[in-house]
């Protein structure tokens, strides 16, 4: 009976997950950026990233950029910290071009993921193999 219940529940688990794809993407991105960290401290301005809705217990939200390993932002703010930034809007890649390691945003009518190769190197971040295809190098100015 338990087995039957487990069998029945398996599609339900996947169903529940499907309705939280954005959250799951954010969790996977953080895990990819900090592969070896046991605890990832995040400062976020995005309502979709909060302590209540992260699926990964190793992600901890902090209240100031200085305490964070990564800053996730969906708007341009004056950040008094030299921590890497991950953006949720395309135009912010240019605004934070020296510190933005990547972004997950809408562009051309679809959601996109991108990592800035130069800034990844600058912060000594190495992505796992399945994320390598998202790395781009901005042209020299």
């Amino acid at each position, binding site marked *: 009976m338990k*087995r039957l219940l*487990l*069998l029945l529940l*398996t599609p339900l*688990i*996947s169903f529940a*997950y*499907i*309705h939280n*794809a*954005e959250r*799951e*993407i954010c969790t*996977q991105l953080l895990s990819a950026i900090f592969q070896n960290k046991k605890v990832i401290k995040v400062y976020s301005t995005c309502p979709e990233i909060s302590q209540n809705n992260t699926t990964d217990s190793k992600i901890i939200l902090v209240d100031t950029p200085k305490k964070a390993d990564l800053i996730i932002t969906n*708007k*341009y703010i004056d950040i008094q910290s030299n921590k890497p930034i991950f953006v949720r*809007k*395309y*135009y912010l890649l240019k605004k934070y071009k020296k510190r933005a390691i990547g972004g997950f*945003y*809408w*562009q*051309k*009518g*679809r*959601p996109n*993921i991108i990592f800035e190769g130069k800034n990844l190197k600058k912060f000594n971040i190495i992505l796992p193999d*399945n*994320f390598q295809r998202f790395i781009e190098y901005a042209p020299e100015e």
Partner: protein
Amino acid sequence: MKKILFTLFLFFRISSLSAEDFDINTLLQDYKKESSLAKQTKKDTSGLLYLYTREMLEKMQARTLKDILKTLPGFNLYRVGNMLTITPSGNMPFFATSIRIFVNDHDMTSSFRGSSYLLWSDVDLDYIDHIEVYKGTSSIAFGSESAPIVIKLYTKNANREIGSKARLLFDTRGSLHTSLYNAQRISNDFAYFAYGHIDNINNKKYYKYANNQSYQYSSDKKTYNFYANFIYKKTTLELGAIKSKEDAFVGYGIQATPEVAYVNKEQLYFHLTQKLAQDFRVQLSLDHITHTLNTIDKSGVFIVDAPPTTIFNPKNDDDVYSITVDKTLKSQKNRLTVGAFYKYKEFEFTKYNHALVANALYYSSIYAEDVYLLTENIKFVGSLRYNNLQYKKEIQKEKQFFYKTGVNYKDRSWDIQLLYTHSYLTVPFIDYYNPFRASNVAKDLHTPTADIYLTSVKYHFINKDDLSLSIGKRNIKDPIIYNPQLGGFLNLNGYTGRYTFAELTYLHHFNQKNKFDITFYDTYNYTEKLFSPKWGINTRVFNSYKKFDIYNELIYKSSYKDVVTQSHLKASYDWTAAVKYHVTKDFSLGLKGENILNKGLKQAYKNTPSSYPLIEQKFWLNMEYLF
């Protein structure tokens, strides 16, 4: 052994989830689907909803609104004069004010004509994200004037479109359809979306030979369309301009022998939406609309109270100014929307004999709608609207009181909706100031009332398939008809026009990207008279395979004897197919065939040698590039 098999099964089940479902590309596709704008805008309790998501429109390679209208179950495309519209299956064409077309929250209706068919029934869709068509609604939820049929076109969202897109289509008759848009976010507070479109559409020409002369029936058209929205903090400004020249096909002459037949149409509009506090909005809008008909037919255009005229070139100039305020109050059990609008609508109409008529309408309305959650599964909806219509001259003022009540039951398997609406079909100025009369205003006309009953039952199977049955009835009291012998537009006082429809739909999902639906519908208008096919079957198949998107649609409509011309029209089969190949993520090539079998729906006209297709047999080459 059983344990091993079970463990293996569980392993493959879970590993298949990990390998496939948790892949980042799959996640991105899921995210795109679950954050569809259609999910944010659709109003489940507002009537029977036909939803065309962006994904569907893209697979269909939809070019204009006509591509959507022809797939609506229970409706037929119908040409009235030079206007392409939809008509309820079997029944006489809709009363002009029965259908309203909106672009976002902007009502496109002409104040003189009471409809927006003339410009908007064939509008290009490259700037449209998704389309909602509501049947049996009183449109209170949409905050504007009431109509039983509401077509909502939602534009693409600047925040999501960042970048540009160009689209170019050619067809086998040398038509061109091209569009370009650009969207940018400039700062935290400012974003814009700007769109331009040009088309030059050639259709098959038909001929009538009479009086040793050949007369051409053409429906060619040229359109220029511009739309832009600017979003600054909580303010959205929308600007639109559309200009079109379209041939008027058989024209308006008694013998359908046009020498000149075309119409120039233009609409400029502005719409400002200001969110002042949470769920409190103020909207200001204005429209300027011009229609000029140019026809010459030596057989003459029939004029009710004067001899026929060979030159028939009426022109209307409309202006509409409106202000709307609404607020939504939410509690655990209730969602109450209250609102009001004030509209000033004026027109100048130059008749064929150069007589100038003008009038204006001061239109005010207050409305409220409450959705009450009785339990987690049951919700009640109730709406009230009070309209006050005051005319500048000649026409008596009018008060209208609308109400709607409904109940909705929804759980994992069932979605049941019962709705009753009492509404009015406001008389448009064109009925008072009949273009086919030399003089006089039809002061005696009064507004028909409409009572609409709607039942819809949908069953969701565990594999995500849907089976739904919808039945509706509409009673129109004192309907307005057009009878030239009796002087033009008049109310059939004491008569109730009744109409019933039923639709049965089965939707099957092969998987997330492949689905198929079939709808059977039938209608009954309580008379022996048919104006268009009364029943039909619509089938659509949406497929994706690797880099290909494939769409097939087959629309069957029954044979009928047209009461206007007494012609027997055969059953029609309209097959549309579209294949799109995504060369890269940003570039695609497509092929589309419309009315491929050339057996699509036809319409008969008086004194013409034949009946003519409403959708031409055509093949399009489609190129889309994102940059």
